[in-house]
């Protein structure tokens, strides 16, 4: 029988999968909790239009930690990563094309059709 592992740790006892040490998992989890605190803290400051990009950037770092370490993708076969990244790329494509249309109307659009809300938010968020 052939062993179709192509350079995986065929000679070792644990040929199936990669064992991630508990210590590395704990460090990853601690990093995720710290980044959660950071994103909550940062949200209390108003950076205007950058708010959403800062929040998404921190979420992307957290997501990468989950995928690379908790989900073993760092040691996994590259093809699994290709599958996952492809799905993300298609979602990004979907969002950017939808938003191309939405932004097209932005100059003509009253930002929301509830001026009372805007007025009150302006008072609350000077």
């Amino acid at each position: 029988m052939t062993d179709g592992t192509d350079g995986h740790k065929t000679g070792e006892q644990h040929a199936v999968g990669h064992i991630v040490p508990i210590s590395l998992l704990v460090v990853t989890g601690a990093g995720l909790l710290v980044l959660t605190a950071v994103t909550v803290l940062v949200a209390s400051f108003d950076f205007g239009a950058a708010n959403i990009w800062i929040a998404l950037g921190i979420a992307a770092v957290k997501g990468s930690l989950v995928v690379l370490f908790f989900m073993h993708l760092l040691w996994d076969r590259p093809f699994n990563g290709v599958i996952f990244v492809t799905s993300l790329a298609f979602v990004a494509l979907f969002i950017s094309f939808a938003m191309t249309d939405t932004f097209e109307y932005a100059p003509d659009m009253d930002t929301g059709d509830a001026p009372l809300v805007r007025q009150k938010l302006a008072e609350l968020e000077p």
Partner: protein
Amino acid sequence: MTATETHAHDHPDFLQHHWDTPVQQFEAGKMGMWLFLATEVLLFGGLFVAYAVWRGNHPDMFRFGSRYLNTTMGAINTAVLIASSLTMAAAVTMAQRNKRGALIILLSLTLAGAITFLVIKYFEYTHKFREGWYPGVMLYERPAHAESWIDDYPTPRLAGEGSSPVVPAAFAGGPVAEPTTVPPPAVAPAGVDAAALAEMDGIAADHDEHGRTHLLHPAQDPDRPANAHMFFNIYFMMTGLHGIHVTAGVFMLSWLIWGAARGRFTSAYFTPVDLGGLYWHIVDLIWIFLFPLFYLI
């Protein structure tokens, strides 16, 4: 080589006959799981597109709506899911090291995290219902002139039109902090006089013959900003679909604990634990994005 001869070899019980080696079986299963996770990303991707477009069209509504969400509860739930992801990843390591006791304990902790998340989410949802924020339009009171839910409902209301130009009651106290604005009897569960609660919250309420409370749709309610319901529609849709995934995770984790208790998983065969873990991590991953998008910005 006939099938009989193949099976005559030293051949682990878990290895199905159409695979050559345990590694081949494991890697094929794992690739299948990643393909499933890709479809999950695309499933939620459609809702993320809706979020982006709606937010692009009603940016103030999203800033307004997020004030109704309790950041503390959202942050606690984020920490709960991260902790349960950590115990899940540790469970996989323990399965790989043949530590059955630790595997069962870690899977049970992961299950406890999943249940805790759902309990916190239950309290958040019921609080939103009490404040009169529902998913969709059908739970709101139908205006008298509307023949059906589809006909002319909801009628968009221009801000200020038909109401006094004063700031709506919902704004009177500034940002709405969830627990503090709830009147004392609000902790009472089903059976409490919802209309009385709603009136205390300054929300128009009415009973039907079954005693259910119908609240005016935000687009009809002069005390609420038009389109405010758009935020809650997408909030309930995305967190609801995520909650369904967490619920599925509860069953998946229970099944893994049962299997681990029967001694089904070893260092040679831990595929269900590994793939269940991948599912659980993607549920965590999606929440990592939902939390800032709804609660923080």
